[in-house]
């Protein structure tokens, strides 16, 4: 980070709140290349492993009286299935596996990031931008494949007065292309902001006078972060469903 830690002379801990987001190679060296195994790689792999463990172990027995793992797996499946069906419609269920994968990966990456000393992969724009761009490209391609040139009707608001339509078209085009930006930055920004706030409070914990307040604040923020982790994954998924609905039914 460009700014060095300056808490030392004021009695705070010597670390910068953004230090937790530094990408480090795991096996020595400091160069991060295209295929270097870094802490991001490790925690993404752990997230994938956790998802696979939950879904495979949970559904391998298929007991009539479900075990706890099976209950959680079924709950997650039903939750996402209902979301896709309600928001994007019945014909969007063909994309359910993709949306389920997105949701499970983001939710597990977020929750693994909450473990102390771990690394939050979804707080990096590089990770979320890839996820959001994939959604954007998928939705655009699906829109054109399913509707052909009628997909452009998304930008041409037929219900508006004729004089207003060109103006609205410009606004619609801009808002369409801002989608991947806001989609990705919302997730990364929320997580990064929350984790940075926790670290800022942790910096105050070394000052004896305010340390009880600081510890209480860290606990409260942590509770909020658990909520945020889930809600942001939910929001990311539900917006994917909304975009998918626009692609499948482009008329307003």
């Amino acid at each position: 980070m460009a700014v060095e830690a300056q808490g030392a002379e004021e009695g705070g801990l010597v670390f910068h709140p953004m230090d937790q987001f530094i990408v480090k190679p795991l096996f020595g060296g400091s160069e991060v290349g295209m295929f270097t195994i870094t802490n991001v790689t490790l925690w993404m792999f752990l997230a994938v492993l956790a998802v696979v463990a939950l879904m495979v172990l949970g559904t391998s027995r298929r007991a009539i009286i479900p075990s706890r793992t099976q209950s959680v797996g079924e709950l997650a499946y039903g939750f996402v299935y209902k979301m896709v069906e309600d928001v994007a419609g019945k014909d969007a269920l063909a994309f359910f596996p993709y949306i389920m994968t997105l949701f499970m990966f983001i939710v597990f990456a977020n929750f693994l990031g909450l473990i102390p000393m771990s690394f939050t992969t979804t707080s990096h724009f590089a990770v979320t931008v890839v996820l959001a761009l994939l959604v954007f490209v998928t939705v655009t391609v699906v829109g054109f494949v399913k509707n052909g040139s009628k997909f452009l009707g998304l930008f041409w608001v037929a219900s508006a007065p004729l004089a207003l339509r060109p103006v609205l078209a410009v606004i619609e085009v801009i808002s369409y292309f801002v989608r991947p930006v806001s989609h990705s930055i919302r997730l990364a920004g929320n997580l990064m902001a929350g984790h940075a706030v926790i670290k800022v409070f942790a910096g105050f914990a070394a000052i004896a006078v305010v340390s009880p307040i600081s510890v209480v604040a860290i606990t409260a923020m942590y509770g909020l972060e658990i909520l945020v982790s889930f809600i942001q994954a939910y929001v990311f998924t539900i917006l994917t469903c909304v975009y998918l609905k626009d692609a499948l039914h482009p008329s307003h």
Partner: protein
Amino acid sequence: MEGQLAHIGAGLAAIGSGAAAIGVGNVAGNYLAGALRNPSAAASQTATLFIGIAFAEALGIFSFLVALLLMFAV
């Protein structure tokens, strides 16, 4: 001097988070007002609630991003 100006700019960008807070409060408050008038329709509208909150919050996150850029990238 320029670096200090960037820090002032980052502080000004933080006003955006307050504005987003007003927006999110509006969405949630109106949802609650509607939900208390007609509780049976409330459950079906939670998805809309979260979409609305997400859109209102996105702009606050943008201002946070501007603040970060001013702090670390300028």
